[in-house]
């Protein structure tokens, strides 16, 4: 069964622990310019949203990758990047509609979430459960249920 990183933006506190964990686990240092997950905060409204690769089923980045460095694993459902094959053309950066593939100048590599090999550190470090590593079907159901509860509350006496 495939898993996904579920984003609960309403729970995000804007603390950046996800970025810090991502940086530490991939690079062994804290360099938030080039993490796979980025948090966007709107200070006036106090709302924050973490963003990372969604591992699209029909991934534009896979389609445009001529050396086939970007491939989709049918079993895990994840889009994997083989750095050895990557030629750095940045077509994936152009193609991703969400902006989740980025180019890191320092390492001259494409940066894209790799779910830390199936044990995403961002979800582990998030203090408010804004990021959850869940079965993709469960994830959708939980949000539906949460909104269904609002109907219940609205109609309850």
């Amino acid at each position, binding site marked *: 069964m495939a898993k996904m990183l579920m984003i609960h933006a309403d729970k995000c506190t*804007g603390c950046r622990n996800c970025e810090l964990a991502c940086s530490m686990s991939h690079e062994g240092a*804290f360099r938030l310019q080039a993490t796979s997950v980025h948090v966007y905060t709107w200070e006036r409204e*106090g709302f924050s949203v973490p963003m990372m690769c969604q591992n699209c089923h029909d991934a534009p980045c896979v389609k445009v990758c001529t050396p086939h460095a970007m491939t989709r694993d049918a079993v895990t459902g994840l889009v994997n990047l083989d750095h050895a094959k990557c030629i750095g053309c940045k077509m994936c950066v152009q193609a991703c509609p969400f902006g989740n593939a980025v180019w890191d100048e320092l390492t001259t590599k494409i940066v894209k979430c790799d779910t830390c090999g199936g044990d995403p550190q961002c979800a582990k470090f998030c203090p408010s459960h804004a990021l959850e590593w869940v079965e993709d079907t469960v994830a959708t159901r939980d949000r539906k249920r949460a909104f269904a509860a609002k109907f219940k509350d609205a109609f309850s006496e």
Partner: protein
Amino acid sequence: MNGWIGRILRIDLTTGKMSTEPLDAGLAKDYIGARGLGTKLLFDEVDPKVDALSPENKLIFAPGPFTGTYAPSGGRYNVVTKGPLTGAIAAANSGGTWGPALKYAGYDAVIFEGKAPKPVYVWIKDRNVEIRDASHLWGKTVPETSDGVRAETDQDAHVACIGPAGENQVLFACIMNDLHRAAGRSGVGAVMGSKNLKAVAVIGTGAVTCADRERFEQAVMKVRTIIQQHPIGGTGLRLYGTDVLTNVLNQIGAHPTKNFHDGYYPTADKIGGESLTAKVLQRPKGCFACIISCGRVSKVSNPKFKGEGEGPEYETAWGFGSSCLIDDLDAVTKANYICNEYGMDTITMGSTVACAMELYDIGAITKEDTGGIALEWGNAEAMVEMTRLTGIGEGFGKKLALGSYRLGELYGHPEFSMTVKKQEIPAYDPRAIQGIGLNYATVNCGAAHVRGYTIQPEVLGVPAKVDKDTIEGKPELVIKYQNLTAALDAAGACLFTTFGIGAEELAELLSAVTGVEYSTDDFMKCGDRIWNLERLWNLRAGLSAKDDMLPERLLKLPIKTGPSKGSVNRLPEMLPIYYERRGWDASGVPTDARLRELGLA
């Protein structure tokens, strides 16, 4: 270096000259960073007798070695300077995300010297530093300034700035970063304004490294677990924010009411954390690397006090609320937003309004002074309007801008000012809690609670409950908290990590990230050293034992009602013991032996 970057940025605003210099490893080891580093730099470079608002004063922004790492809730920075409100050393502490940005840009501190010939802002992008014209931003609020600076630099730039209050040199003007976070007390914002420095914008693409990755990760995971399992650090603060303290303090009769006339406010619940959560809270917010999330994203829909932003914190709810006999949460929250937008310290603002209300009550000031506003106890609209006038520098706001001490003096009643070293006392009545009173009297930057937060043992029972009404053992307790907090501040950690961890865990985190070995004792000694250095600087600035005091009201006028009725603070009995335990002489001057022991002589 690890944890530290190893570089200090120096900017002379008078000449426009910019330079960098290395951070001395020995200095870093002894003073850690942030408050400690800033204090050492100030001590070495600034004559304590300078006028705080003159170009001779320096303004130092310094994060700590934790800042920029995932040390839990370890993303803070300090602003160190001479405080215009107090005439003493000022070290204002702030969270948000600005401090880490400065580390990623490649600096352990930035020192601002002199005064720019006209309004400027500084734009730091890694090693590229520019001083830019800010004339078009002068007069703008904190949100407008942040937007304006970002539009000209980078939409992701982290901005620390002053509002109109700092420009007008309101003596308690603060520096705001990330819109809602304040380096709050002692008027550090006025110093920034006196230098014609409107904002400091930072983008950093570099890294903060750690010396021993495995050891640091282990220490971090351990600390995270401890704090997350702690009912306060892990749950209470996120659910209710610091304002949950309103009812705690009120129910034990230690909630200063009506400018410290009393210690119990019957309707305090209306401005407490439970009410805040129910009525104005949108969601919790966390600073950089924070796992506690005490921040309150809030919104007031009531058209009379409409607004949005963050807060109020306990001190703010108290200052604009109970201290003024106001129990209107919307009004209190609105006053908080005004302070954030104009850049003013909420504790001093609230307490100054309370002092003004007392002056008005006895007729020392009248409607003629207030521009027709009835500044009566409990008048919420008047309180909000006075706050606004102070922010924009108009009408009676110009007098309030002096802070309660100078305001009280001006109208013949300095005894109505609840201050120590001219800085307003926070929301814990020292008549009902002995140790915090001793702390207020002896904190180097003026009355402050976070510098020696003995409320933890005396009221909350963290780590264990201590009798709040006894004076026995309080000097030792206060000293321990003051030293611990100085070292903790210097590391860049948040005080609220102490809901769970102590010196031992902090020393381990520090050792692992920097690669410099600190035992628990070493860590506490750094705090002791920083404390004594602050003291020395203050003594040279002209402060003395007579400034280690509490207002008469708190020594002589017992609390009127509530569970702590009848108490006064027994400072005169505790202070001599405090001096002795600190290794100071009877006049509160550190002895040579003490200074040698700390490497300060």
